[in-house]
């Protein structure tokens, strides 16, 4: 398991580091909301999911997309705006999708995929499927009314869905406590009849165990939903490839605690050196391949502008 976690975390981290490195060249003509520092949540959750389980995310979904098995080549091509992108260049980094991997969408409007995840879960239940849905969103989405409406309906119908709040404490530059009187997101979920738990500190193992347990209960047919608030931390600026401590809305010190407890470092220590090097080599090769794939992918044809508006 530790090797699995390490590979998944290291891979996402390195992909995003490459994105950040390439960004100044303007080859990526798209905003990028990097997950660097938050990988543990997507990995912990998705490692506990089955291939036919479904996830929905936000504009900050690189980690989720990759953790759930989204195609790396097509993701980078999408950031490059190329024809082989996972949305043919028509989505961009904020709308990653991979139908095969059941990454069913990501939205640039905060909170908007939460009810879609609920609707998908409603369908799964009606269709008597035993797969489940995981809905990912940030602490900012908790400010939106649709969050409560969605939890209320999911609880009312006992749907097979797991809500995953990635609480990195900030909405852009505004701290949670400047937007919510209390630091009690789980209580808000409980008030709607959901069992809810807070998982501190990028605890990938803990997240994995909690989600595995909930998924097990859902597959066994007991009613959902479940709610988890995963405390995590965004190390880069809200959007873009850089650090932003100079802006002054947060301190370097605040970040250091998270850097120290970075699960990637922790896991690295536990891994046999040879295996670690093998994993890292494979990942580096895969990343090189993905970026050159994106480089070589053609631009979409002009005719693509008019396709996919309606069913043709």
């Amino acid at each position: 398991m530790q090797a699995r976690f390490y590979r998944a975390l290291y891979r996402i981290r390195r992909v995003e580091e490459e994105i950040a490195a390439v960004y100044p060249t303007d080859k990526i003509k798209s905003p990028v909301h990097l997950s660097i520092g938050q990988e543990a949540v997507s990995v912990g959750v998705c490692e506990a999911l089955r291939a036919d389980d479904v996830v929905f995310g936000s504009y900050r979904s690189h980690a989720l997309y990759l953790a759930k098995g989204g195609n790396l080549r097509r993701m980078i091509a999408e950031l490059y705006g190329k024809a082989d992108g996972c949305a043919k260049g028509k989505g961009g980094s904020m709308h990653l999708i991979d139908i095969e991997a059941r990454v069913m969408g990501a939205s640039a409007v905060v909170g908007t995929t939460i009810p879609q995840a609920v609707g998908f879960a409603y369908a799964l239940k009606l269709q008597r499927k035993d797969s489940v849905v995981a809905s990912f969103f940030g602490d900012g989405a908790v400010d939106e009314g649709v969050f409560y409406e969605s939890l209320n309906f999911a609880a009312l119908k006992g749907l097979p869905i797991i809500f995953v709040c990635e609480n990195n404490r900030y909405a852009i530059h505004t701290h949670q406590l400047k937007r919510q009187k209390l630091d009690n997101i789980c209580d808000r979920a409980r008030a709607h009849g959901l069992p809810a738990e807070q998982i501190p500190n990028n605890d990938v193992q803990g997240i994995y165990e909690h989600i595995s347990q909930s998924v097990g209960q859902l597959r066994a047919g007991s009613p959902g939903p479940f709610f988890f608030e995963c405390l995590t931390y965004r190390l880069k600026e809200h959007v873009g490839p850089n650090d932003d401590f100079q802006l002054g809305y947060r301190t370097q010190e605040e970040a250091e605690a998270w850097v120290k407890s970075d699960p990637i470092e922790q896991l690295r220590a536990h891994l046999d050196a040879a295996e670690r090097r093998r994993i890292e080599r494979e990942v580096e090769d895969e990343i090189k391949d993905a970026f050159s794939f994106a480089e070589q992918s053609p631009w979409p044809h002009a005719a693509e502008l008019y396709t996919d508006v309606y069913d043709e």
Partner: protein
Amino acid sequence: MRRNFTQTSMTSDTKRELSYIDAVREATDQEMARDSSVILFGLDVDDPKAIQGTTRGLLEKFGPERVFGTPLSEDAMTGVAIGAALAGLRPVHVHIRMDFLMLAMNQLINIAAKSRYMYGGQVQVPIVVRSMIGKSWGQGAQHSQGLYSFFMHVPGLKVVAPTTPYDAKGCLVHAIRDNDPVMYVEHRILHFQRGPVPETAYTVTPGKARITASGTDVTLVGISYMQVECLRARRYLESVGIDAEVIDPIWLSPLDIDTIVESVRKTGRLCVVDNGWVACGASAEIVALVIERLQQIRPVVVRRLGFAPVTCPPTPILENLYYPNASTIASAVYDLVRGGDNGWMPKERLDLQEIQFRGPF
């Protein structure tokens, strides 16, 4: 493009008459029986009033998983419809008033309309959003709006506003089978209309307008409930020797402009009567399209009629002035045809009185 009324499956069975309400109910019933992926939900679809009867009996027939009332959560429930559609269902989401769609705009405009495109054609959102325009009996500011031009403005949505029981059924059957989001616009007064409706399922497909009465002097396009007023206005105009051709666009997006253009090419005069406000409304679009198509081909005079550019007042004395009606339409068309401002206004004919509608709602 033009659809010939008599050549539709109408002929198959013209004897049976249904109300618009029963036509909507039957379309839903038949499609739900045909396709188990069709589900029906919305506030009060399962309550004793059953959305004026349009959902009557469906809960009993298809069960609470496929037919259910919802919390008062228009925003989330629209997202739920989209998500269910992504999973392969075909949700029909019902709203007792179109005004309440303003709570669902984010999901409709930013997600439903855009998902197919922004996901590179890999997903589709086959949802039907039924909503009703209210009128009279003190509906007032927030229960009377016809805001479909918002949805005509945004690529990715389809919009239909059937005016007869026949089209109510045929358009709903199509809308449920359509793989794109369809805004299905009803009108509370039209609900009381009765007309021939074949028992078998049939579709009235997008992009086909219908000439509901042919004429040579002027083209009258009546949208939603205003189609009824236009047909009445035509009778008034007959009495003064003006022969109006009346067109029902039925589908507002995609819009069958060809049928309208062909009519105006013949008449040279166009009056669009909308069941909404004029500014940036359906009437503006239709006038602009016709002008773009016929300019330099033949001279055309146009006129737009719609709600007064104010908020809807509940008091009947003002509400009567707020809406176009057969007399005011006839009067405007008279001027359009004869030229100038003649101040002619027909006397209300009782035999043309609208179906009486009594409140409370």
